[in-house]
């Protein structure tokens, strides 16, 4: 039953990634298409543009949310692939807990930097 909930969460995070990463991709990488709609995204990877976005709470919130759902979705997916190799029960637990620790560590570091920029 617990595995079903985790799998359901995997699907929900997949949909959330499609939305949040879609916003990120369009804003940062589809500049010539956005130009058609009159949105100027020139130099969106420049330091000034990046700092300007980082100092806006809505962008910081979007990136932190994206990081959380992407980490869960990616690590749960990778765990599933590795568990297909049918490790022992103990091996499976080690893999699961390793991914939990990696995920929490990556989320902590990935959240610290945008929050640091937001407050500076």
């Amino acid at each position, binding site marked *: 039953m617990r595995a079903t909930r985790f799998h359901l969460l995997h699907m929900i995070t997949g949909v959330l990634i499609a939305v949040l990463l879609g916003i990120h991709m369009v804003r940062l990488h589809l500049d010539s298409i956005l130009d058609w709609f009159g949105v100027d995204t020139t130099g969106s990877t420049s330091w000034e543009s990046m700092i300007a976005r980082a100092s806006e709470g809505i962008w910081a919130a979007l990136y932190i949310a994206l990081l959380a759902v992407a980490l869960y979705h990616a690590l749960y997916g990778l765990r599933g*692939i590795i568990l297909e190799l049918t490790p022992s029960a103990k091996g499976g637990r080690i893999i699961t807990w390793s991914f939990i620790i990696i995920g929490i560590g990556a989320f902590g570091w990935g959240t610290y930097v945008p929050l640091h920029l937001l407050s500076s």
Partner: protein
Amino acid sequence: MQPRQNYLGAGGWVWAGKYKLERYLYLLHRITGLGLLLFGVIHLIITTFYRYRGESVWESAMSTLSNPAFRVGEYLVAAAFVFHALNGLRLIWQEFGFGLGRPAPPIYPYKDALRKKRRWAIAMIAVVAVLALVLLGDFIAGGP
């Protein structure tokens, strides 16, 4: 113990055996997923460590990433995202039982999974192809 029919083992990660289109979509879903994970790790490193070290390091990294080899890689990541997202939505759609048709008694000639038309899968591939071409046009036009 009899060997399981259609059991492909780890070899099934690269070869679909008797299975049809969906199996190859599954393989591509896995490959694009692993590729996106690899890119995500690199992206997280650049947007945290490099950003934290200040403007000159950031601009130097962005300058390096703007060369054609990285631009091609960037396009592949964007195309992989489009495929992975749309195929993932198709899988969710089917997991909840939509688009599978009503159950029917097995009357000859059988309508089984190997011979049925795959309208949803083909429609999804068409959308992926169109979006991939749109992205390609944008990248050729010179996005960042």
